[in-house]
C-alpha cells in the first residue's frame, strides 16, 4: 500500500478546492477544526462517551480525506433498489458527492433541496454550526474532522403546511480502492408549522473499505413536525460515524427512527435539544448486528424548557460475535419543569459470544418532572421456543418468529406509509438471512 500523506498535508492541498473556499470565516473555521482534531485525535475509550466503541482499529489506518470524486459509473438501475418510493423527492450522493443526473430535486411548493456546493452564505453559516457542542472536545473530534473537510451534502428547506411526498437522501458508496472518507454535511430546516418526512439512506455498493463521516443538522421551527428516518446499511467493510444535531422549537415535534444493520463499525449519535416549551421528541431505533459488527447508538436528549415530552425506545438484536452499544443520556435543566421523559432499551442476544453494553443516564435539575428509564438484556426464552417447536414449527423458524416479535411493535410504530414498508423490507431481509444461516448450521 502506498503511504498516505498526513492529515495536515491532506488539508493543505485540499483546502482551496473545498466548497466555500475563499470565505475568510469558513477557511478559519475549517482550519481551527483541523487543529482541534490534530490535538485530540480519534476518540479513545478513555473519553466517557466513547467508552464502549474503540476506534483504534481505524485510527492507525491512512484514510484519504479528499478522495477523487469519480465513482463507478452508477446508473438509475443501481439507484432503484434503494429508492424509498418512486414518487419521492430524491437527492443522490455517490462517494459523498452530489449527482444531479441521478437525483430528482425539482423545486416544488414548500420544498427546496440543494447541495452543499450550491449553498449561499447564510446556508453555509447554518451548515457550519458545530454539532455535539455540549460535549467535551475529545468526544467530538470526528465532527471536527468533518468540519475541516466537509465537502458535500444536502440542504433541505421545507415551508408551509402542504402535504409533501417524503424526501430521501441517498448516500451510495462505491469506493475505488484506498481508504476514502466521505465527509458529508447535511442541513434540514422546517419552517413554522411545516410537516415533512425525510429519510437518510446510507448504503455500500461494493465490498471495499471506506469511512462515512456524516454530520446532519436539523432545525424544527414552532409547531412543525419532522419524521426523520435513518437507514444505515453500509458495506460490510465500512466504518460509519454519524452525528445528528436536532433543535426542536416551541410545540414542535421530532420523530426519529434509526435502523442500523450495515458496516463493520458504526456509531450513530443523535443529539436532540428541546429549546422551547411544549416540544416533543420521539426517538426509536433498531440495531441488527451479526458477524463481527460493532454498532453503537448514542443519544443525548436535552430538555431545556418546560412541558417537554420525550420518548425513546431502542432495541438491539445481536448475533455471532457482534457487539451492540446503546448509550442514552437525558438531561432536564432547572427550568424544564413538567418534563415527561421516558427511555427504554432492550437487547436480545442470539449467541453466547454476542455482547451488548447499555448505559442509560439521567441528569435532572428540575424538581417537578416525570422521568423513567429502563434497560433489559436477554436471550430467546427457551419456554417459548419449545412451545413453538412442540407445534411443528422448526427451530430456525421458531427463532425467527420470536426475533421478529421482539422488534415487531417498533417497526409497526414507524410513522409514514412509505417509510414503514421500506424499513420492514430491510429488517425482513436480515431475518431471512439469519434463518438461512441457522438452517445451514
Amino acid at each position: 500500500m502506498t503511504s498516505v500523506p498526513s492529515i495536515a498535508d491532506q488539508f493543505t492541498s485540499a483546502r482551496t478546492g473545498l466548497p466555500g473556499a475563499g470565505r475568510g470565516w469558513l477557511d478559519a473555521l475549517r482550519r481551527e477544526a483541523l487543529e482541534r482534531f490534530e490535538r485530540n485525535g480519534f476518540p479513545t475509550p478513555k473519553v466517557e462517551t466513547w467508552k464502549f466503541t474503540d476506534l483504534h482499529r481505524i485510527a492507525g489506518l491512512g484514510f484519504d480525506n479528499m478522495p477523487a470524486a469519480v465513482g463507478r459509473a452508477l446508473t438509475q438501475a443501481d439507484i432503484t433498489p434503494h429508492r424509498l418510493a418512486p414518487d419521492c423527492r430524491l437527492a443522490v450522493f455517490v462517494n459523498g458527492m452530489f449527482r444531479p443526473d441521478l437525483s430528482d430535486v425539482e423545486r416544488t411548493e414548500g420544498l427546496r433541496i440543494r447541495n452543499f456546493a450550491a449553498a449561499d452564505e447564510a446556508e453555509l453559516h447554518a451548515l457550519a454550526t458545530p454539532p455535539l457542542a455540549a460535549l467535551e472536545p475529545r468526544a467530538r473530534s470526528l465532527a471536527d474532522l468533518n468540519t475541516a473537510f466537509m465537502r458535500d451534502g444536502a440542504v433541505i428547506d421545507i415551508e408551509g403546511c402542504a402535504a409533501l411526498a417524503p424526501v430521501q437522501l441517498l448516500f451510495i458508496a462505491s469506493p475505488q480502492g484506498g481508504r476514502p472518507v466521505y465527509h458529508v454535511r447535511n442541513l434540514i430546516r422546517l419552517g413554522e408549522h411545516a410537516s415533512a418526512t425525510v429519510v437518510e439512506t446510507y448504503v455500500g455498493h461494493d465490498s471495499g473499505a471506506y469511512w462515512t463521516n456524516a454530520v446532519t443538522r436539523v432545525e424544527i421551527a414552532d409547531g412543525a413536525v419532522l419524521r426523520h428516518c435513518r437507514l444505515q446499511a453500509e458495506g460490510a467493510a465500512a466504518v460509519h460515524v454519524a452525528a445528528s444535531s436536532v433543535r426542536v422549537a416551541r410545540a414542535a415535534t421530532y420523530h426519529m427512527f434509526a435502523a442500523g444493520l450495515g458496516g463493520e463499525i458504526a456509531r450513530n449519535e443523535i443529539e436532540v435539544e428541546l429549546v422551547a416549551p411544549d416540544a416533543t421528541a420521539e426517538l426509536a431505533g433498531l440495531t441488527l448486528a451479526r458477524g463481527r459488527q460493532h454498532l453503537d447508538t448514542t443519544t443525548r436528549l436535552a430538555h431545556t424548557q418546560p412541558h417537554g415530552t420525550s420518548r425513546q425506545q431502542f432495541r438491539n438484536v445481536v448475533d455471532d460475535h457482534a457487539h451492540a452499544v446503546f448509550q442514552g443520556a437525558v438531561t432536564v435543566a432547572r427550568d424544564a419543569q413538567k418534563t415527561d421523559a421516558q427511555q427504554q432499551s432492550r437487547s436480545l442476544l442470539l449467541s453466547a459470544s454476542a455482547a451488548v453494553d447499555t448505559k442509560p443516564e439521567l441528569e435532572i435539575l428540575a424538581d417537578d418532572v416525570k422521568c423513567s428509564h429502563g434497560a433489559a438484556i436477554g436471550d430467546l426464552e427457551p419456554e417459548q421456543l419449545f412451545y413453538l417447536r412442540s407445534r411443528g414449527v422448526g427451530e430456525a423458524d421458531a427463532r425467527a418468529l420470536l426475533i421478529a416479535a421482539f422488534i415487531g411493535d417498533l417497526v409497526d410504530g414507524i410513522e409514514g406509509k412509505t417509510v414503514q414498508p421500506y424499513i420492514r423490507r430491510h429488517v425482513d431481509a436480515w431475518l431471512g438471512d439469519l434463518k438461512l444461516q441457522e438452517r445451514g448450521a
Partner: protein
Amino acid sequence: MTALLEIQDLHAEVDGRAILHGLTLSVPAGEVHAIMGPNGSGKSTLAYVLAGRDGYKVTKGRVLYAGREIAALAPEERARQGVFLAFQYPVEIPGVANASFLRAAVNAVRKSRGEPELDAMEFLKLARETLKLLRIDEKFLSRAVNVGFSGGEKKRNEIFQMAMLDPRLAVLDETDSGLDIDALRIVADGVNALRRSDRGMLLITHYQRLLSYVVPDRVHVLAKGRIVTSGGPELAQELEAKGYAQFEAAA
C-alpha cells in the same frame, strides 16, 4: 399389532434427577386413557418426555409411537408426525399473533405429510370453521399467543391448536386445572369432539372431575414414577373417594 403409543419400562430424569422409574403403558388408536396421580408422581415429566422437551432425558426403556422409537426426535419432528401436547401452562408469546403462529405450525405439519401448504385465505377459512365447531371467539386469531388470556382461554386455545393440527396422539397435561365449570365443559366438549377411531388420547389429570365429562376407556394411576394400577372409568371414582394414599404406599 402394537398400540399407537407403547411405553415400555421408561426411566427418565429431569436435569439429572430421576423421576420416572419403569413406566409401562399402552394406548391403542381410538382410545382415551387417563393418567391420574398425586403431585410429584411424574405426570408432567411423562408429558414433556413424550413431547421432547430439552432437559428431559430417557435413561432406560422405550417410547414407541406408531411403532417407531421417538425419544431421539426433535419436538417439531414429533409434532409433524402427529404427536400433540396440550400444555398445563400454555406459554405467552408477546408480539406473535395466534393466526401467524398457527399457520406456520399447520403448514410445517402439512409440508411434512406431503400436503400442500395453506395460503392465508385457506388457513383463515379452516381456522374459522374450527373455532365455530369449538364455540371459540374468532378474536382468538388476532390476539398474541396466550397473552392476556384468562386461564380458561389459554386451555381453549390449546384445544383449538389441537383441532387445527389434527394429531394422531394427543397428550393433555392437566388441561382441566384452574378451570371453572363452564370452561371445563367447553374443554371437555372439545376433547369429545376430537375423539376419533384413528386417534389416541392421553389425559393427564390430578382430579376426577374432567373424567365426568370425558369418559376414558382406561384409567391408570401413576405414583412415584410408575403405573401402579390400571382399570376402567370406575377407578377414577374410587380414587376420588379414597385418595391416592393407598397407591403411594404400594409404590
